């Protein structure tokens, strides 16, 4: 660690005492040094990862300023944080890398990335509304109250005058008939 500026230790001691200007001077001076050390330690990491490691180091330094012992040089302290936080960043990257697929160059006709937010749900909804229309008045009412408007059983019982048990049974049967209609068979088949 021969490349440590003698001012670093002075600035760090002042930063521990709350001197923001000395702290800014220290971080500004240490930034290119940290980038250089990170690049030489992890030569195969990309620029974004190196910058993440440097930022994590600066944050950890800020949170642990109290751990620095002024009788010691500052560079090993900074480099120690860089090693530990850099290793954390790399571990995190490797953990996430298994779930990611890097796409370098996407052809203009590639359809895999086209967002299709509503088309499927719209068509499903249309099929279901058509199926509900084929059900009896009573089934439609039960499904309307409990599934579409999502009332509680107690509220639906109050509105219809039916008991909760009767409502449960009616809902179950209405759902069975709805499934049958959506599959294409007649609602009264079962």
């Amino acid at each position, binding site marked *: 660690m021969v490349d440590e500026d003698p001012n670093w230790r002075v600035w760090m001691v002042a*930063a*521990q*005492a*709350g*001197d*923001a*200007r000395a*702290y*800014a001077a220290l*971080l*500004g001076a240490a*930034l290119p040094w940290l980038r250089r050390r990170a690049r030489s330690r992890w030569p195969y990491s990309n620029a974004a990862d190196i*910058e993440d490691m*440097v*930022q994590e180091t*600066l*944050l*950890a330094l*800020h*949170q*642990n*300023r*109290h*751990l*620095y*012992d*002024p009788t*010691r040089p500052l560079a*090993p*302290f900074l*480099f*120690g*944080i860089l*090693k*530990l936080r850099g290793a954390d960043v790399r571990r995190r990257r490797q953990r996430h890398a298994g779930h990611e697929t890097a796409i370098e160059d996407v052809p203009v006709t590639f359809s895999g990335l086209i967002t299709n937010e509503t088309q499927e749900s719209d068509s499903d909804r249309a099929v279901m509304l058509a199926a509900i229309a084929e059900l009896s008045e009573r089934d439609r009412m039960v499904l309307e109250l409990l599934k579409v408007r999502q009332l509680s059983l107690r509220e639906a019982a109050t509105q219809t005058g039916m008991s909760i048990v009767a409502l449960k049974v009616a809902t179950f049967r209405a759902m069975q008939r709805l499934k049958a209609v959506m599959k294409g068979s007649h609602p009264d088949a079962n």
Partner: protein
Amino acid sequence: MQTEDLITSLTQNLPPVRRASSPSALLLRWLLITAPVLVLVVWIMGPLPSLTTQITQPRFIRAELLAGVTCLVSAYAAFSAGRPDEPAWKLWLPFIAFGLWLAELGRQCFVLSVQTKGAALVLHTDFMCIPAIALAGLIPALAMVWFLRRRAAFRLTHASLCGAMAAAAAAEVALPLFHAAETMMMVLVWQMGSVVLFTMFAAACGRFILTKPAII
């Protein structure tokens, strides 16, 4: 966020900080809590009647010394692990001390087994070792957690592993003074096994203990 912007935000409203104590100062404070607790535990449990003759035996003294050295070195390593600029050799020193301690007990076990024609190798169940070590090591372990939660910011798993080894070794220094093992094999399996068990447990959940909101 750009790193230059991060630096600007970090340097705004910078409060002064109180410097953390050095690992040796923390070790001294921990010992000031641990030593009286161990003396108290031995006094409450009642020292062995044969203690006066035992403490004159070189093998007893060697085992106690190595347990003590493991305890001190482990505690120092635990307090050092939380600082980023401590060299790696300091952090691995407890394992050397523990290895020497284990080797000495193994040597004693071997020598005694030859002298007693295998009698030293007899192994019974002695579940008392686990609660006895837990009891003797409880306060040292809690003190260690208290110190580490306030000082350690890096290598938390290593810090908790060394801290647990220190507390277990401290308990193991006190244990032979009030709890007699029948054979050397029982010392190796039950007493050292308990030390390893507590150390492994702390290593497994140390990060959780040291980072979750305070319970002590």
